């Protein structure tokens, strides 16, 4: 059997804080992706979802330290730090950033910015790169001729489309999209999501969609991983997460999300996530959990398989006849 496209094993990220303290932003995250998968990485602000994919891209700032392994096609790209990630970045793994409007250089035409990574990585050059940039712009629905214009002549959605084209410049296998539609209206959000899904199907691209928006993941992704306090607390097929959640946080997060036709009361989760600059004891979700029991106070639950390709980190799953 061939190795998965991406395998993240026990990834940790710490950020230096003043006065020799540390923020343990990602606390042992593991997941894998097969080619063509669409994975949603879901969580609230500060849960470590963006940090985790920045670690995969090797784009963390100097204040960060990283442990664990990121295997791309079986090769550990994290082993040599920046030097071993660089050859893969943009060539094998590319990223669409949150607020991509700011990721474009205002004084260069859009096409030349899309051609730039190709020239840098030597995948294409000169007229060839220009032609490919045109093709990519066509593919994301802007049109090749728009490439000669400058970013300020583009609307928000067009810039987002251009940012996607830029990410695809070197023909990556894996696309990481960090909140690609957060600042957009629903109608244009739908346009961008449709485009991302079409790209995964047409190009066989593998997608990781990082977002706080569960319904977006429900509509776009096959699988999702729910993050809380730097850990993946549950991961599995999207359908199972919604219909048979095995972690209380997943269940409560769905219950806190209003649905257009939902009849149930929308309930907030009391409290707030724990601080990550102090060591956590027991289950990190315990103070906000409605089903916590004595074991949750002292023992940290580790992720365990609960069904086919479905993992959850909750002690309730060890109790017979009780489900989250």
């Amino acid at each position, binding site marked *: 059997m061939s190795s998965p496209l991406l395998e993240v094993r026990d990834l940790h990220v710490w950020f230096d804080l003043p006065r020799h303290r540390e923020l343990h932003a990602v606390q042992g995250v593991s997941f894998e992706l097969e080619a063509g998968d669409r994975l949603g990485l879901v969580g609230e602000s500060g849960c470590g979802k963006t940090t985790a994919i920045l670690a995969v891209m090797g784009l963390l700032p100097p204040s960060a330290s990283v442990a664990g392994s990121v295997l791309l096609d079986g090769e550990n790209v994290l082993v040599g730090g920046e030097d071993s990630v660089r050859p893969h970045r943009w060539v094998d793994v590319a990223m669409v950033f949150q607020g991509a409007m700011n990721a474009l250089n205002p004084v260069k035409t859009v096409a030349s910015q899309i051609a730039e990574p190709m020239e840098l990585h030597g995948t294409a050059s000169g007229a060839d790169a220009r032609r490919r940039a045109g093709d990519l712009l066509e593919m994301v629905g802007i049109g090749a001729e728009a490439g000669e214009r400058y970013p300020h002549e583009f609307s928000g959605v067009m810039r987002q489309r251009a940012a996607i084209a830029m990410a695809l410049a070197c023909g990556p296998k894996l696309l990481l999209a960090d909140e690609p539609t957060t600042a957009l*209206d629903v109608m244009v*959000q739908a346009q961008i999501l449709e485009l991302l899904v079409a790209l995964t199907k047409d190009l066989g691209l593998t997608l990781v969609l990082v977002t*706080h928006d569960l*319904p977006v993941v429900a509509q776009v992704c096959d699988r999702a991983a729910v993050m809380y306090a730097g850990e993946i607390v549950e991961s599995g097929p999207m359908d199972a997460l919604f219909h048979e959640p095995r972690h209380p946080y997943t269940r409560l997060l*769905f219950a*806190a999300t*209003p649905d257009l036709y939902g009849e149930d009361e929308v309930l*907030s989760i009391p409290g707030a996530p724990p601080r990550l600059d102090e060591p956590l004891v027991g289950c990190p979700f315990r103070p906000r959990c409605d089903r916590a029991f004595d074991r949750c106070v002292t023992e940290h639950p580790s992720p365990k398989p609960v069904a086919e390709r479905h993992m959850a980190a909750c002690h309730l799953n060890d109790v017979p006849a009780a489900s989250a």
Partner: protein
Amino acid sequence: MSGRDDGSALLEVQGLVVTYPVRRGIVGALRRRPRRYVHAVDGVSLTVRTGEMLALVGESGCGKTTTAQAILGMVPTVSGEIMFRGEDVTALGPRAMRPIRRKMQLVYQDPYESLDPRFRVRATVAEPLRIHRVGGSKDDRDRRVVDALQRAEMQPPELYADRYPHELSGGQRQRVAIAASLVLDPELLVADEPVSMLDVSVRAGVLSLIDGLRRRGDVGVLMITHDLSTAAHFADRIAVMYLGRIVEEGPAREIVRDPRHPYTKALLSVVPKRDPRDRTTPQILSGETPNPVDVPSGCRFHPRCPVAEDRCRSIDPRLAPVEPGRGDHSAACVLVSGEGEVRMMAGDSSGGT
């Protein structure tokens, strides 16, 4: 707490028009090019009763925030009436407006920016009292502050009163902002995207708080939002705006389950559903909302409308009941109101009658 619902309309807006001049630039000014205007709000009428929540829904640039600002007297109106408790406030000067402004309060979108970082919670909540010289003694003010914090479900108030905003979570900050709006005992709350900057897990709490306030009959709520799911859950009625106009208005459940206007239908179809099994084909409109400087002729939605007919190019439809005799659900579309009242696009686009 006794309600003050007497059945009459708390806020009644008729044919509101707000325009902004477009910058001409130096070249334009030199050539004496005519000054052009953005019709941000172009003939909006709506009603909010005490104890009721009206959600004004639309995409960015549709004029929903400008409508709210005009109601609060924060931007000048060009024409139209804004009746608050039966009094037209558009005609009032700042001095006469002051006592009325006390009764209308705005809850801002971003609680990370709307609270002064150097003010303790107590000072933030007490500030409106100081500005409006309400509450004589310090004890009296303190009592009102504690009361407002309690109404905003900050329990126990003493625990939070002496904190700074950076010591509070996003949801708590928004509760402080709401407490600061409640302290003057307003009759109308205008909530501008009150939860869009908050984490999903705490949104429901803040929305339920606003919902509870109006259900107790204390206030009427005008909620500005782009999120139809939220509007469907918490509002009594929904008004959908497109390019400065309300295109459909009616009971929230009906708008969501039985939309009539093609824009509302499209908008609803692209809202992602929670259930992954419920993957419907979204009806994605191409392009973006046109620039409100160049409003299309006839029905302003016709260039993007999937069912537009020839007559839509010339007829500017007005809001009319979706079925004869139904006053509570109306849409502005010739295909919906059938033979309903339509009028030809005249030279001006000033809406209303």
